[in-house]
């Protein structure tokens, strides 16, 4: 098997072993996955299943120890050097000494966009995440949900077609999370980006994704890949439909199967 050059992300027999003082830990083993352009892929599983590690491998924040992975046909390092992706962390990681617009400008400054261009992009991306008018505020003046939206704006500010999101709404309450999920789908529809999204919430994964990757721990591996049959247009109410519940059931079954393995 070789990686598929048409895919945005293409992993073949990917493995990653951490050397720790307690001996080697298999964070990922034998992962085979293709993410097509425009996909919304969720990675779901209990902690220690390697879902965040996989995202970090795509982002060149970790190096795999086995197998191959290609991002737009390049190695992760090449892809990172070409700024192929925007990464949204679990915490907003905004710089507290920068205003919201300056935080969004951070990647633009680093990548050397001209001033005028920076201004236009800041305005556009803040509008995308519904934060217009908050540009002059400092992060501490915003709620947790707004801060995370600002960090999404920062990841969208430059022209990366791939958005990597590591449990971006994990620390937020459910009402805010529902709202942000809805906004994220709209944003995805408007921008036509490919999104890889790590979560440990089944409803969140089913609601957002076109493809759900179910993972399980010890060793971290993929146990099931589910192609969603839900339409692209998804109101929040879709979560009560039988179709939605059926997919959620399959995800739950997949998680349970993976879990019984280590008992």
């Amino acid at each position, binding site marked *: 098997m070789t990686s598929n050059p048409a895919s945005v992300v293409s992993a073949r027999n990917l493995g990653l072993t951490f050397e720790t003082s307690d001996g080697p830990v298999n964070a990922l083993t034998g992962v085979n996955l293709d993410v097509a352009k425009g996909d919304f892929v969720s990675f779901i599983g209990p902690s220690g299943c390697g879902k965040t590690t996989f995202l970090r491998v795509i982002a060149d*924040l970790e190096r795999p120890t086995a197998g191959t992975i290609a991002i737009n046909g390049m190695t992760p390092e090449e892809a*990172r050097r070409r*700024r192929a992706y925007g990464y949204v962390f679990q915490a907003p990681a905004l710089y*507290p*000494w920068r205003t919201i617009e300056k935080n969004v400008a*951070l990647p633009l400054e*680093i990548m050397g966009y001209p001033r005028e261009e920076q201004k236009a992009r800041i305005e556009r991306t803040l509008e995308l995440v519904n934060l217009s008018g908050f540009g002059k505020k400092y992060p501490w003046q915003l709620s947790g949900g707004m801060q995370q939206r600002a960090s999404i704006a920062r990841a969208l500010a430059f022209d990366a077609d791939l958005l990597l999101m590591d449990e971006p709404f994990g620390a937020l309450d459910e009402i805010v999370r529902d709202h942000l999920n809805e906004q994220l789908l709209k944003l995805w529809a408007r921008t036509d980006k490919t999104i890889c999204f790590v979560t440990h919430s089944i409803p969140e994964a089913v609601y957002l994704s076109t493809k759900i990757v179910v993972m399980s721990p010890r060793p971290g591996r993929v146990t099931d890949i589910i192609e969603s049959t839900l339409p692209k247009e998804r109101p929040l109410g879709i979560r009560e439909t039988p179709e939605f519940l059926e997919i959620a059931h399959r995800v739950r079954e997949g998680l349970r199967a993976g879990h019984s393995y280590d008992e």
Partner: protein
Amino acid sequence: MRQETFLRDKLLPISTVIVLLIAIWYVAAVFLNAPFERDTAARAGTEIGFSDLLRNTMAQERPVLPAPHQVVAEIWDTTVNKAVTSKRSLVYHAWITLSATLLGFGIGAALGILLAIGIVHNRAMDRSLMPWVIASQTIPILAIAPMIIVVLNAIGIAGLLPKALISTYLSFFPVVVGMVKGLRSPETIQLDLMHTYNASPAQTFWKLRWPSSMPYLFTSLKVAVAISLVGAIVGELPTGAVAGLGARLLAGSYYGQTVQIWAALFMAAALAAVLVMIVGAAHGAVLKRMGAKP
């Protein structure tokens, strides 16, 4: 309303302590200076009454412990009543010490920051330099100060710079330690973010490490400026006591001029307080500009 809280929270506790200290000082002055008065009276073959004793202990020429008002009068006399260019002016001596302090502090802060940058970015420097930086502070400054003065004099460097270098020797240390900590203070997630942008080390430094280190820098600078002053005074002791607060201290102790010593001590303390307050104000201004939560 705000004035009231200021009065209650700041002024009242501080002034209470001051009043208490002054009271203790007066009592101590009477006790410590009384033996001299009794001796004088005994030699003259007279008895001295308590009220005379009290009055005399607070007005001696060379008391063991001068009374607070004597010190205040000396400071007033040597600052307001003397021209600032006069060698008898405390302002003149304070300026001599201050100029060495500021030069030494400037060099020390710059050196400290540069060393910290090197230590944070270079493993070899981290391993090799840090132990020496710490070891440098175990050498008593009183021992090394005359050596520095003598060695520099031998190669023709005299005046301000040798004293300033002793200030530097003391003040670079807190800056190195504080800045190493400060430049390493960004969280992993903030550094990862820079990595995903493929930021250069220089960009990571200026856009992340440097701003992150500001609170650490100013805390270190407050300590550094205070010990810079100590360094400058210590540096004046072995120079033959020509000018500066250190010279005033030394001359005072040669001639038993305790009032002069105490006046110089208070001048040094006031100078240190003002310097620390200036750095503190700069700290506040910088943090405010960086959008810190009020």
